């Protein structure tokens, strides 16, 4: 029997996969324009995601479909496309320095975007896991991909990431298999906890799926790979890991927890994740490590409302959307301040950076304030309010309290990093007439390429706009 395929519903996937092909062809035919092709393709993917007919579905058996178009899936696809384009833009200076082969880099990143789109539209567990693997597989290579032995940390980082990720996929697949064996359900819309003899088997299966996906969002105690990997990778790749890759994990986790009763596991994961992430972040002395640990903690805030089940999914997604935007800005500003081909550096490398480059400083302040959930990062404030509101509505007041107290711990390192940007110049120990001048001479301002500026400006404008008008995001997620 042949199955009717709704090609309109698959438009975003075609566009995303086409982008990867386009990059490949551009690389083979012209050996240039790869990044341009990637950015244009990502834009096309976003347009297709918006254009795909709402509620269209395909690969169906009866009412159950493996590919479902929803406004939320469209929003998330747009986000994946935007993040891919943004990370491509951030990588331009690094690639110009010859850090990695441009064609391969852009191809792998757009492949990863394709995986993200699949995850967003997935309607069953298999599609979800396949999409998630397509999202992460290219990233193993991206983390370790470099021409020169510039960064000795890259190879171990890539291997760590690879091993952990493969294990987590195996765990999630095993969970899916057990669940299928116990309940016969694979489609997300009919996942159930199982009954009778197989109830325990189904519970184990659900727990394994949650644990497998928790690896992807770097939830404690399954987080150890994240700081090593982020710090070993080039900053733009770390940007992608902490935004798009994490978003994929959140989608997968949300798809599962809203129909299976996994509240306790998720709540424990959330509490551990935010608390450990924040406490360890307090002690970091390297910028990317600090951001990595803070993003571990942020994952805790994202999954906290998932403990509630279906009622918390909207809040989790709202938080995730605001979070990836702010996280992109933070990493992007760090990459721009540090210049091409360098790692994130130590915190001391950022001493007075905001005084040297006031716009990049302002972007970083906006991002840090947002991640801390404070004005002027209003988007982050709304994100936090949404999470607390959904938890209290569902009667999980204690978890809301843990989230709130964690926000206080987190502020300690966010203000430390932010204050450093504007710290006064410390005397160097030798008599100097104008220490400011000497500092400026020894810490030259890194020129920021136009393409990076464009990515950051678009991101910052989006973050400010969503800070003043977050309602559209809530509207899309609620539909």
């Amino acid at each position, binding site marked *: 029997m042949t199955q009717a395929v709704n090609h309109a519903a698959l438009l975003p996937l075609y566009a995303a996969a086409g982008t990867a092909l386009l990059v490949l062809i551009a690389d083979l035919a012209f050996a240039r324009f790869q990044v341009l092709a990637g950015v244009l393709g990502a834009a096309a993917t976003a347009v297709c995601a918006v254009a795909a007919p709402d509620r269209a579905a395909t690969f169906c058996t009866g009412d159950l479909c493996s590919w479902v178009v929803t406004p939320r899936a469209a929003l998330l696809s747009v986000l994946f496309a935007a993040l891919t384009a943004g990370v491509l833009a951030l990588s331009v200076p690094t690639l110009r320095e010859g850090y990695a082969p441009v064609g391969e880099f852009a191809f792998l990143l757009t492949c990863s975007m394709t995986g993200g789109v699949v995850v967003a539209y997935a309607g069953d567990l298999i599609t979800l896991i396949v999409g998630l693997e397509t999202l992460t597989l290219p990233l193993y290579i991206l983390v370790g991909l470099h021409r020169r032995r510039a960064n000795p940390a890259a190879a171990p980082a890539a291997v760590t990431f690879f091993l952990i990720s493969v294990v987590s996929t195996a765990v999630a697949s095993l969970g899916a298999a057990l669940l299928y064996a116990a309940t016969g359900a694979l489609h997300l819309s009919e996942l159930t906890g199982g009954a009778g003899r197989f109830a325990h088997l189904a519970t184990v299966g659900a727990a394994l799926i949650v644990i497998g996906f928790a690896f992807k969002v770097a939830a404690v105690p399954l987080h150890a790979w994240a700081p090593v990997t982020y710090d070993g990778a080039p900053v733009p790749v770390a940007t992608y890991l902490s935004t798009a890759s994490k978003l994929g994990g959140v989608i997968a986790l949300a798809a599962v927890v809203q129909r299976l009763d996994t509240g306790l596991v998720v709540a424990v994961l959330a509490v551990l994740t935010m608390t450990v992430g924040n406490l360890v972040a307090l002690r970091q002395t390297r910028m990317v490590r600090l951001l990595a640990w803070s993003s571990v903690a942020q994952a805790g805030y994202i999954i906290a409302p998932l403990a509630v089940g279906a009622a918390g999914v909207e809040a989790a997604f709202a938080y995730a959307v605001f979070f990836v935007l702010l996280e992109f800005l933070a990493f992007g500003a760090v990459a721009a301040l540090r210049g091409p081909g360098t790692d994130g550096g130590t915190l001391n490398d950022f001493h007075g950076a905001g005084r040297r480059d006031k716009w990049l400083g302002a972007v970083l302040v906006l991002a840090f*304030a947002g991640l801390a959930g*404070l*004005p*002027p990062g*209003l988007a982050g*404030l*709304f994100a*936090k*309010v*949404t999470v*607390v*509101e959904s938890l*209290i*509505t569902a009667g999980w*007041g204690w978890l*809301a*309290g843990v989230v*709130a*107290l964690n*926000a*206080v711990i987190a*502020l*300690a390192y966010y*203000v*430390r990093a932010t*204050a450093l940007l*504007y710290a*006064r110049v410390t005397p160097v120990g030798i008599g100097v007439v104008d220490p400011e001048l000497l500092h400026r001479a020894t810490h030259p301002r890194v020129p920021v390429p136009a393409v990076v500026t464009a990515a950051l400006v678009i991101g910052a404008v989006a973050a400010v706009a969503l800070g003043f008008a*977050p*309602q559209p995001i*809530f*509207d899309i997620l*609620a539909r």
Partner: protein
Amino acid sequence: MTMNPPGVSGLLQVLLIAVLVVPAVGALVVALLPARSDRGSRLVATGFAAVTFVVSLALVLTPSQRDFGWFRYTATDAIPVVPFAEVDLAWVPRLGIDFHLGIDGISYPLVVLTALLTTLCCAYTVWKVPEGGSGRTLAALMLVLEVGILGTFLALDLVLFFIFFEVVLLPMYAVIAGWGGVRRREAARKFVLYTLFGSVLLLLGVITVVVAAGTADMLALAGGFGLSRTTQYVAFTLFAIAFAVKAPLWPLHTWLPDAHTEAPTVGSVILAGVLLKMGTYGLVRVGVGVAPEGAAAAGPVLGILAVAAILAGSLICLRQTELKRLIAYSSVGHMGFVLLGIATGTAAGIQAALIGNIAHGVITGLLFFLAGAIKDRGHTGDLADLGGLRETAPRLAGLLGFAAIASLGLPGLAGFWGEAFAVVAAIQRGSALWITLAVLAAVGGALTAVYFLRLLRRVTHGPATPAVTGFTAIARPEWLAWSPLILLTLVVGLVPALVLAASADPVAALTGALR
């Protein structure tokens, strides 16, 4: 939700929005001005602050056509709170946030005071920029602070109130950390972490109320909205701790002395003058207003803590050796009186708290200006090194004496009313506990006199020390910044009705549910 609440003229609504938009635009403009025109941008900032002040005055003086009698009924039969100017726009329906602003007898004195102090501080910044950073950035931050503080006083939506409450956090941190004294970093961090701890509790309380009541409209919520007793208890506990950190109430006050000592003069003035008032105002408007049963139940505890604050503040002040630190600790005692008034839960008590708020803002603002002037000239704030000020700078010494005497509560000056009536309100409660508290508070008031007189004896009397010799005369900008505060100290002291004029109805509405 109507866009135009009935009976409010379009002009008033425009003024109400302008009072927030003007400083916000001002901050943006000042921040974007080129760095080389530093003095020019400080002048621009002062202009924006002055316009805000004029708008805030116009807001109060424009006649409202509102019929205060009948048209809004709350869930309970309490007297409704009717602001005389109001704007209500939907903002984020998903979270139930309306951009709902209003001004009534409780908030207008604070609004005007905020606008006035910001203007004075900006003007002062034109004349003198504290060491540490550009004056332009400092002026922009002052305007951002003004937006946050005014927004807090104007907000009539609980979540909006919380958002404005948070707005001041980072700018104040930046002011202390950027332009502060030697130990500014630690002081600023302590300030920001303490106050964020307070505001996350506020968030929990706000959301608890909003989820239980299904609305964030503070007008509808005033008087309890039929919230269950448990909800009110939980909410009030959260609110009380949150605002106690901000106010600050002993024993959650430890951030305050450090922040004040390290902050630049203008930062201290804003901090003591109006930022602390966000805590006491919140306790009245949100704590007592939204969870009256919780407030009634917690009254004795709050009262005991308030009196402990008065006594602790006074005793600590007796041992202080640093000028700004002493004034900072005196704030703990003064805010104790304000909280005692609120704790009584009676109309008289809350009116005492309102006037105490204003008086403390004016007088302590003036005291910090004077302390800053002395520290800038003498390069020390150590009481042991200061002495004989009246020999070398008689005018400065005279002003310090005036402010100190006003602060210790001399009848006829602003400080008297709040403290005296807080004690009277406590006595009126009648029970043994409240009378004991009143007596102890009065003892604390007497101790206030002791330490301020000790301060004056140390600083102004005796032989002149090397530190106070060669003081320059008071400059014209200083007179400009100080004289409104001196005048207000006198005027509020002589005509307290100026502050309390329109507060009777809203206070009755808030306390009505308690009885």
